């Protein structure tokens, strides 16, 4: 079975400071990994994805994530937070054990203070 753990339920930052949202997954080989963002009362939108190409993945709105197989991690970062980044972020893993049903983390709520 595949699983994904988002290590923080809430992250609070000030506008202009770096953002780090942590995600770990369980697997013995390389899965596909995704980060999605959900703004209040909206559907989910893809931020970025990793599918066994470059380990450093750049996404929309200045976000990026690095796949680290040795640490089974796929943390999401952004150098400078903007107020509009306040949202719920989901780390998703797919493909482990032949499963094409993605497994979602429980989400991290990003709070951005002015």
């Amino acid at each position, binding site marked *: 079975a595949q699983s994904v753990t988002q290590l923080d339920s809430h992250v609070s930052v000030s506008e202009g400071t770096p953002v780090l949202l942590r995600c770990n997954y369980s697997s013995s080989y390389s*899965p*596909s990994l*995704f980060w*999605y963002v959900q703004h209040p009362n*909206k*559907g*989910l*939108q*893809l931020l970025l*994805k990793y*599918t066994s190409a470059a380990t450093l993945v750049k996404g929309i709105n200045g976000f990026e994530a690095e796949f680290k197989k040795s640490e089974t991690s796929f943390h999401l970062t952004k150098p400078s937070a903007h107020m509009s980044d306040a949202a719920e972020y*989901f780390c998703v893993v*797919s*493909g482990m054990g032949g*499963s*094409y*049903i*993605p497994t*979602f*983390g*429980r*989400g991290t709520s990003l709070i951005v203070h002015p």
Partner: protein
Amino acid sequence: GAGVSQSPSNKVTEKGKDVELRCDPISGHTALYWYRQSLGQGLEFLIYFQGNSAPDKSGLPSDRFSAERTGGSVSTLTIQRTQQEDSAVYLCASSFRGLAAYEQYFGPGTRLTVT
């Protein structure tokens, strides 16, 4: 192009009534997923359709829940004899193919309230 659409956007129903939720996926996407998102919770997988294959119903919480997908396109999620614990946002997503590397495109969701 058009994204995933869902209707209705909001649905209020009385306990014990049946409801139908509709999802129109992106044209050409063969994979379709239904999820449930309760207040402050993550996404709970309900059901997965891939092309003409039998759907994966492993996430349906009870036999009151069912879904169908007609012509490989539009899908309807039906909840019979609704209960208050069914209140949630129901999200639909489609994907180009039901393969691990393909991202999902989500609809805006249907907010179901059971009174």
